[in-house]
């Protein structure tokens, strides 16, 4: 063959190969007709959700509340009660009710006729067993036994009796009433203690009372975790509830942007990732149909390292609080998707406990002049005329504020905080270390100012005050009291709150006032805004989503929310018209 013709032949062959590959892959885009996989899920009966799982799937141990695959508690395992954070009410669930027979004895009535997914009946023995598991010191929820005064858990007839020594930690106990997974003793007793405390357990062996059964996904490289609705869920008969989607698929997250692209392409129904405001349009709805569009899920706090000067001075902290231009943060970082936090830091559901008089007296808001005045009165002056105040002893003040790298909204926020602090004369520079380094530094007090929002919605503001005031202060503050604020008085008040039942409104309110007073007087941490319970709904396949005007359920698949009211979201969902 002549060279030219041969060259052309090669060229043509190569082009043909490339074209064939492209055609094949494009042909996939319209993979309608053709061999159906044995597995493929029908779109109209499947509920896709994203925004919950960032670490690999594989863990189905309900004890590991931060790590178990999305839906382990809520879809598979359930709890004795559920909690409605928007009303503050406890919902009887696996327990039909309960009450304090005496000040230190609680009786829980167990529902009859509840069957596990393997057909065996739920007994009070299973409930006792589930609470007894927490006794092990390495159990992540061991605090129930260690710090509430709980002494014994016994089965009496169809009830489970909790006996406390001394004054019980009512608030904490209430928390565990809706946060301890009720597991089958006949299955779990086969695991070793180590496995139960730290292992991942066997996904093929999930036996729970919940409405869904495991199908697939419990592997570290799985992209999705698939649950399938099962017949025989107790709530269908007892309460007339039935979750609408036949399949619930949780999608693994690697980045918000990738998830958003998939959401906008119609592949996701419930979007619990953060997305900019511009994404809310057309078929994509949110809980509120106007700003702030999302419910608040937790408070974002600014933690100062109170072991370092000048952050050890409450007046300085106060001035700092006054210098923060919250509106600018809400605008620049969130375009109005979040709300400003109360100066007490308490979530809106607890607003009825907010002591307005205390707030009026000791609260703060954005006021540059006030900030400057406080600084001056406290003795911080700009002696060298560089625009920044110095310490009382004359040394320079140069603070670093941090948030994890990649959390774009927070990164913008701390830039705004630094800017507005500068206007008041406080020199602050933002920094964005990666998450692991930040956590480590934060725990070991190697920071000046840092943002954090670990504590979520719960039944009690006690969780917030524990977060701020817990003592003693350890070498590594992994989860609470990052700012290392040591006030035995405040901690004692917190513990007192724990031991005050919510029903004792007068006493409760009194303690809450005292706590708010001591908090605002000292400002060991500065509350900023309510980080959103990000939730966007794709109304193409499913309707009747939670909304401010409709069913007010928590619209998120995040862990620990199913046993609040997220499961109601599924049981009230309806297929969209035409499906």
């Amino acid at each position, binding site marked *: 063959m002549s060279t030219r013709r*041969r*060259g052309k032949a*090669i*060229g043509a062959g*190569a082009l043909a190969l490339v074209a064939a590959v*492209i055609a094949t*892959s*494009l*042909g*996939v*885009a319209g993979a309608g007709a*053709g061999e*159906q*996989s*044995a*597995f*493929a*899920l029908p779109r109209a009966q*499947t509920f896709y959700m994203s925004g919950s799982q960032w*670490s*690999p799937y*594989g*863990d189905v141990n309900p004890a590991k509340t931060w*790590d178990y695959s999305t839906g382990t508690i809520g879809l598979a395992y359930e709890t004795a009660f559920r909690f409605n954070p928007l009303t503050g009410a406890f919902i009887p669930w696996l327990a039909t009710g309960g009450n304090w027979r005496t000040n230190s004895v609680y009786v829980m009535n167990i529902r009859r006729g509840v069957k596990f997914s393997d057909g065996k009946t739920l007994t009070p023995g299973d409930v006792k067993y589930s609470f007894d598991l927490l006794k092990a*010191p*390495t159990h*992540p929820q*061991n*605090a129930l036994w*260690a*710090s509430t005064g709980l002494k014994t858990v016994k089965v009496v007839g169809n009830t489970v009796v909790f006996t406390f020594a001394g004054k019980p930690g009512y608030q904490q106990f209430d928390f565990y009433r809706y946060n301890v997974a009720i597991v089958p003793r006949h299955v779990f007793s086969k695991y070793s203690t180590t496995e139960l*405390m*730290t*292992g*991942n357990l066997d996904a093929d062996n999930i036996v729970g009372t919940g409405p869904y059964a495991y199908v697939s*996904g419990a592997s*570290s*490289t799985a*992209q*999705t975790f*698939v649950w399938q609705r099962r017949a025989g869920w107790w709530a269908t008969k007892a309460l007339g509830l039935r979750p609408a989607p036949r399949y619930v*698929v949780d999608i*693994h997250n*690697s980045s918000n942007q*990738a998830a958003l*692209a*998939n959401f906008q*392409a119609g*592949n996701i129904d419930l979007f619990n990732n953060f997305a900019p405001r511009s994404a809310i349009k057309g078929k994509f709805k949110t809980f509120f149909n106007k700003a702030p569009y999302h419910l608040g899920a937790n408070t974002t706090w600014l933690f100062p390292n109170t072991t370092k000067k000048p952050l050890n001075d409450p007046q300085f902290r106060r001035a700092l609080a006054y210098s923060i231009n919250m509106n600018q943060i809400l605008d620049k970082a969130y375009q109005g998707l979040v709300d400003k936090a109360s100066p007490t830091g308490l979530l809106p559901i607890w607003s009825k406990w907010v002591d307005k008089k205390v707030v009026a007296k000791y609260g703060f808001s954005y006021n540059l002049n006030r900030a400057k005045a406080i600084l001056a009165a406290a003795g911080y002056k700009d002696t060298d005329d560089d625009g920044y105040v110095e310490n009382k002893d004359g040394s320079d003040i140069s603070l670093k504020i941090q948030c994890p790298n990649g959390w774009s909204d927070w990164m913008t926020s701390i830039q705004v905080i630094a800017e507005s602090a500068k206007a008041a004369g406080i020199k602050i520079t933002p920094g964005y270390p*990666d*998450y*692991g*380094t930040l*956590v*480590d530094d934060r725990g070991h007090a190697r920071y000046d100012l840092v943002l954090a929002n670990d504590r979520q919605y719960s039944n009690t503001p006690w969780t917030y005050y524990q977060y701020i005031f*817990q003592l003693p202060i*350890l070498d*590594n503050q*992994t*989860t609470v009291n990052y700012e290392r604020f040591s006030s035995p008085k405040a901690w004692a008040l917190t513990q007192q709150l724990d031991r005050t039942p919510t029903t004792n409104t007068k006493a409760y309110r009194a303690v809450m006032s005292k706590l708010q007073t001591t908090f605002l007087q000292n400002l060991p941490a500065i509350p900023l805004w309510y980080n959103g319970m990000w939730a966007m709904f794709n109304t193409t396949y499913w309707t009747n989503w939670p909304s401010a005007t409709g069913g007010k359920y928590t619209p998120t698949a995040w862990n620990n929310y199913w046993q609040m009211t997220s499961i109601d979201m599924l049981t009230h969902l309806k297929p969209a018209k035409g499906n």
Partner: protein
Amino acid sequence: MWRYLFRKVSIYVVTFVVAVSIDWAIPRFMPGDPIQGLLSRMQAQPQASEELTSFYTEAFGFDVPLWKQYLNFWAALFQGDLGLSITNYPIPVTELIMGALPYTLALLVPAILLSFWAGNKVGALAARRKTLDNTVLPMSYVLTATPQMWLGIILAWVFASSLALFPVSGAYGFALQPEWSVEFARSFLHHWILPFSALFLVAFGGWAIGMRNLIIYELEADYSNYLASLGAPTRLVRKYAYRNALLPQITGLALALGAVVAGAIVVEIVFSYPGLGTLTLNAIENRDYFLIQGIFLFLITGVLIANLVIDIAYVFIDPRTRVGMQGGA
């Protein structure tokens, strides 16, 4: 020849030991304590903190002095035990890697082989056709200088985001699970095209340029002139030139492997492809010592083995080295 091989293998063994030691040391010099990170993600109650810290410290062998950790590491290595992942405790590292490996290989192997084949063919074509040369060469320079990750982002933005021809991320559609079916294969291929292209195009550019220059050199060599003087058709001359030019390209392949693997890691992250790339990023962000170690170990071993294979193969395919080794005439 056997002495040569023995020397070669010894060098590789030494390299392996040094590389693995560095691999063991690196995570430990990263700032941050993995167990504390784990505990704070657990939101463990402070009372449990102490217990859990000591439990995990013992479980991961951090309670023994560093030198002992090092020796234990080698002992475990020879038993095929890469330890347990810290962040995904108690999943073994080997399990995590094996789960991710097929996806990485699915990207790497075709990318390396196809780019080598196509790049060399096109480079050879360009060497003798001026018009092709004027287009292929500048394009190849651009391609080979492009970071794979950046090209991946561009491809994702243009073809996935804007034109919606391909999916943005993942290895297969959400409605499917890995299985042997036509539909899964289709979905897999559909998701595979863009990350594969990012790797393929960049490597292709490098090979095309190299081959083009080598072919020109070979076509001007004495033996090519001699064959032409004896009236051999250009087909035969080109065939010889191509085979001779391929030899240095194969050596180059061994050198380029490390770079391609690194590129694959970042491309996977761009496309959220569930291979070693995303696993690595996760591991680094969470200070998962053992997982980082394990993945790097895998990569080191893989690249070393590939290099060794190419090194040894080269002895057999290039008669000059082979004969020289046998103490030729």
